[in-house]
């Protein structure tokens, strides 16, 4: 099964992204907590991309694909043509440092890495593809 959702890079569209994921995974026997974590990880990835690669320009678009090849295995792809924002290249800040520096950012990457099994970046057909996999 596959699902696709396209959206402009306005942060106001994140709610639509979350609703799309919840709808697509409905009936997949994913627990409320696991679904919540998946929605969270993809929200973090999309908002990072919207902010850092597209400067929240609503005329720039990203696509989110969900593939479910077999029951319990989920492949999420976020596709865009902005500058590559590879979270594997970023060092996760330590919690103590965030508190001390009163920083509001930096937690999203830690969340995504905690929730997803694998995060890969590919370049296909002139587009950036961030592929996240999760097996439940």
């Amino acid at each position, binding site marked *: 099964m596959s699902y696709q959702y396209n959206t402009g890079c306005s942060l106001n569209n994140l709610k639509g992204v979350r609703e799309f994921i919840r709808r697509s995974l409905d009936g997949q026997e994913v627990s*409320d*907590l696991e679904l919540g974590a998946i929605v969270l990880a993809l929200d*973090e990835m999309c*908002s990072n991309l919207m902010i850092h690669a597209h400067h929240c320009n609503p005329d720039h678009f990203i696509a989110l694909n969900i593939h479910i090849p077999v029951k319990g295995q989920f492949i999420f792809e976020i596709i865009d043509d902005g500058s590559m924002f590879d979270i594997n290249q970023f060092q996760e800040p330590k919690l103590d440092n965030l508190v001390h520096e009163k920083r*509001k950012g*930096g937690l999203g990457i830690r*969340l995504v890495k905690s929730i997803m099994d694998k995060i890969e970046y590919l370049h296909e057909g002139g587009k950036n593809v961030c592929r996240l996999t999760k097996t439940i």
Partner: protein
Amino acid sequence: MVHIKRLQEVGADIIAVVGEIDASSSIELDLAIAKSVGEGYKKILVDCQALEYISSAGLGVFMSYIEELRDKNISFVLFGMKERVLNTFSILGLADLLNIRENKQEAKKLADELSV
């Protein structure tokens, strides 16, 4: 989309958060806490009973106040979180850095104890 309401009860400022906090709406939570701190409240409770979702942007807001609250001796307690919201705090280990209680009564009790 988030709605934030504030009400005062026996010396405590209660910030009620209704809806979803993400990168587009975390600024509203930030402003509400800043206002409460700025008005000099020594006990601030955050009512999360109607908080349906929080992303790292919202978590970051709470994190960014931890030192200021400590420096100003402000008792800050969150309460009434749904399991999936609490799970987001737990994944990052924030549940240990913040005061979180199940209900308002327990939150008030802890705020009173912390402000002694």
